[in-house]
């Protein structure tokens, strides 16, 4: 009885805290980067790699790698238009 209540409470707390997980942010950034980059490049979601690590000072380091088959041809507007 007491233990079931404890496990339930623990689960709730841990589920809320999961939002701090770096891989959660990495997946989120990856999907947004793919959306943004696909305006300029022809790539698949697997071509975008996002890695979040922590250095010795505790600062987050974001590494982004994207590769594509070809760049999209962009129409460039003349100056002043």
């Amino acid at each position, binding site marked *: *009885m*007491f*233990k079931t209540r*404890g*496990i339930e*409470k*623990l*689960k709730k*707390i*841990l589920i809320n*805290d*999961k939002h*701090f*997980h*770096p*891989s959660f942010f990495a997946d989120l950034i990856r999907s947004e980067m793919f959306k943004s980059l696909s305006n300029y490049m022809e790539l698949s979601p697997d071509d975008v790699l996002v890695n*979040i*690590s*922590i*250095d*010795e*000072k*505790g600062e*987050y380091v974001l590494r982004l790698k994207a590769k594509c088959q070809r760049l999209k041809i962009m129409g460039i507007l003349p100056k002043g238009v």
Partner: protein
Amino acid sequence: MARKIVITSGKGGVGKTTICVNLGIALARQGLRVMLLDVDIGLNNLDVVSGVENRVVFDIVDIIEGKCRPTQALVQHPNFPSLYILPSAHSYNVGKVDGNTLRAVVNGLSNNFDYILIDCPAGIELGFHRAVFCANEAIIVTTPHISAVRDANKVASLLNGYYLNEISLVCNRLRADLVLSNNMLKAKEVASSLNLKLLGIIPESDEISSSSSIYGDGIAIDEQSERAFNVLANNLHSGSNEMFDYTQKYKGFFAKIKNKLKRRF
């Protein structure tokens, strides 16, 4: 090349230093060369818990400042010859000790040992990151209390960012009577909540508590704790997955009657 393992928890008072010392002793008993490194600069206790505080001449900061060689600062344990302690400084401007320098010291000593156990400070501040930066594996210590498990979860999330080879869990201070009467979480339940591999179970020990209160050292002197630490050391060294049965003396007909009477009076 030594296995460099950081012993961390997030929450203070869960038994990081005690587990660091006793795990080191259990490994040293198997004939392995072990170094215990105290990274808790300013609030160091590893020398006291291991009982070598009177033998300390140099510390980690003396090495960093070039006052001594790393091997000169090592303190050999009087009772366990293959166990060495590298103490931390009592008071120091911690800003001078950065993760890269500390890692260089650890890597320099790595060839002389089989295991380097790094005692991490509580919290997730700079000291935590410095300690984790030196390691390639981590052991998270927690007690079966919700606040400690929550902090262990946060620490596990942070450790994911370091891409360590392995992150495992040790559940400390379990009480068999409370677990059997469903008034305390089991170690397996804690491990599954955290999604971590359970490396070992350490039961609550009155002997360790009173030893740390009276003598200052937290070396396991009772048979049950000693056996629990030996099982933990075996799991770490050989990769086995055996769990110490701390509920044994509470099982059986007579044990149940004895415990019921004990609780009533």
